[in-house]
């Protein structure tokens, strides 16, 4: 059997995170005895795919190209099996407002939100639009780029005066911003994996960052966030977050692996924030934590996903 190719790096703002995720997944796969190559995405990739003909590609690319379906579209063109969701599902999932809409149609609760491009603020006057946004969504609210990961460009806005800077920060990462009613509660991440025998939710990971905000620093500085796995939820809520993550995974047409980011509020309601089609596998990421808490071996889980992708390719 030819090698497995782990793709990591790329040109997205999350290149650094991707390189770390890629290294960890590659090492885990090697630990199962598989032959694994690692490489970046550049102009020589297609030639390499033709000459080396890897049996499967594991795209550990975060952010655009990796999660927006583009690289997977190319892999489809070349008939190269790969781990993860198909391009169209990635496009839907990576676009947070679209993913929220799909989730909502599937009956999942998601915070009230408004999605607007920068151009709208220019044309209609930012002050009036922002006033209307605050009036509709209330404060505090979350401002996010519509397409991004690792909390890059995200801000919690507590006062109307903070909103202009938060908008500029979000637009630094893309032309469209999502403003979302802030939900106070316990943040949980719920991975879903499917080795071919059907999707299953892994234990929810509760996330409690020291500073109260799970931003880039809290995500990637070991020690700055307390993780509890399984999340300290009642049996009913544990089942509910798993149900929501599975429902989101299926409603969005995802495959192999995903991670849903949810909030459980004080009334026990589960709110869907977003889903990741190439979730982080770094040393501080939640999916490996959940896998470990489930009593599973990271390498074997990754290998099972590769196996599922290879089997799918044969069919």
């Amino acid at each position, binding site marked *: 059997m030819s090698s497995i190719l782990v793709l990591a790096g790329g*040109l997205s703002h999350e290149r650094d995170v991707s390189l770390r995720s890629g290294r960890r997944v590659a090492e885990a796969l090697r630990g199962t005895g598989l032959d694994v190559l690692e490489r970046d995405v550049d102009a020589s990739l297609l030639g390499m795919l033709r000459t080396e003909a890897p049996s499967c590609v594991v795209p550990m690319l975060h952010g655009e190209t990796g999660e927006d379906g583009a690289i997977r579209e190319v892999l489809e063109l070349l008939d190269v099996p790969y781990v993860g969701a198909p391009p169209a599902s990635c496009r839907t999932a990576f676009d947070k407002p679209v993913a929220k809409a799909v989730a909502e149609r599937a009956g999942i609760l998601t915070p009230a939100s408004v999605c607007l491009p920068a151009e709208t603020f220019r044309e209609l006057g930012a002050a009036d639009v922002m006033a209307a946004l605050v009036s509709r969504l209330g404060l505090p609210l979350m401002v996010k780029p519509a397409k991004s990961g690792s909390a890059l460009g995200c801000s919690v806005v507590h006062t109307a005066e903070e909103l202009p800077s938060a908008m500029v920060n979000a637009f630094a990462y893309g032309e469209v911003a999502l403003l979302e009613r802030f939900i106070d509660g316990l943040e949980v991440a719920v991975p879903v994996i499917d080795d071919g025998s059907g999707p299953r939710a892994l234990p929810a990971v509760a996330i409690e960052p020291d500073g109260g905000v799970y931003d880039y620093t809290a995500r990637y500085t*070991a*020690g700055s966030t307390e993780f*509890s796995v399984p999340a300290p939820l009642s049996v009913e809520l544990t089942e509910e977050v798993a149900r929501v993550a599975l429902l989101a995974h299926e409603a969005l047409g995802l495959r192999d692996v995903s991670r849903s980011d949810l909030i459980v509020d004080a009334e026990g309601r589960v709110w869907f924030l977003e889903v990741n089609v190439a979730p982080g596998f770094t040393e501080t990421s939640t999916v490996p934590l959940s896998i470990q808490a489930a009593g599973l071996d990271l390498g074997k889980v990754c290998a099972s996903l590769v196996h599922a992708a290879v089997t799918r390719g044969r069919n």
Partner: protein
Amino acid sequence: MLDAVMDNIPPPAVTGSHTRLDSYVDRYAARTAGMTASEIRALFAVASRPEVVSLAGGMPNISGLPLDVVGAAIGDLIATNGPVALQYGSGQGDPKLRDQICDVMRLEGIEAHPDDVVVTIGSQQAVDLVTRIFCDPGDVVLCEAPSYVGALGVFKSFQCDVVHIGMDAHGLVPEALDQAIRAVKRAGKTIKFLYTIPNFHNPAGVTLAPERRPEILRICRDHDILVLEDNPYGLLGFDREPIRALRADEAEGVIYLGSFSKTFSPGMRVGWALAPHAVREKLVLAQESATLCPPSFSQMAVSAYLSAHDWQGQIKQMREMYRERRDAMMQALEDFMPAACAWNKPEGGFFVWVSLPPGIDAKAMLPRAVTARVAYVPGTAFFADGFGSGSMRLSFCYPTPERIREGVRRLAGVLESEMELRATFGATSPTHELDLRSGYNSPGTDLG
């Protein structure tokens, strides 16, 4: 093989745990408090890709080095003196190299004895050693505003309080220095030294005017303040002979730091400190405590290069190469940048300091720049107190003139978009207001 590991995933056997993913999280020293992941550092990972024109890094351009000469010198070193080159050496550094270092410093008017030179692992380690032997937590180090990010990191790691002193187009402002010293003393704090980069400043690109040098030395002498003169770029002036070092006129009150990283090879990691006798003794002991000795091989390789090659001619070539790049950047800035930007024309070194239009936050704008495939260092990196977001450092040392022009063109487009966005939202960077309150200005504001 694959099938052999393909056990179907068993049902989760959930085991509970609380973790911070760092078993030592409660045991780190207080000085590690700021050692965290940052979005800005992550963005620089993208800058390493060839698609991105990086005007961020200060990597010396060593493309013109005579690798055949270097290779032959190193080969000869190993053949003739391998057992010494590959062995531990003196904590103070190789005597022959220290002698040659004195020849290098003579170009800047310094008459020194090799016994007063301590070889270090780059001048970066010299900053570390000097801080180590002088500074207790809470001691004050005076630095220019802005200052070298690597030195600020050292001062922070030793828990020093950095007090920035204003600069203008002619470098450190003597009156500002005097006022700052008096203010710190009034506050009951202890100043351990003034850290200054007088020539072709990193990041500001300015050079301390000759007429200010005696004044700076007088002020420090009057207040009994030691001067730490960091001079890695001193021999890389474009239109002039090497400038007389502060140390050339003040032996007892100045510790001078030099480096071969910019004039030969940063990979060798060889720098030095020239210090008054008593300080030198402590530096040697601190060096031995930190590393036993600087690397013998690197020192002897540098020494062999200096002996075998016309190193002064090589530096002249480097100056020409950097001057061409400086000129390309000046022209591109002139051609492309929005009118409200201001910058200086460096007379040497690697860097240009650009002041941005009011309201622009260079740190917040960086993701947009990376998307446009250009990178720079936001001004905040060069302040210990969070100021500087209205400025950026551009380096012209590494990219070709064509790439520099393209990079500035992209940057100008990013700036235009950011200005439009800021105007739309009425969002302004608070740093400009803070600059005024602080009593010092980033240098670009009056360098136009």
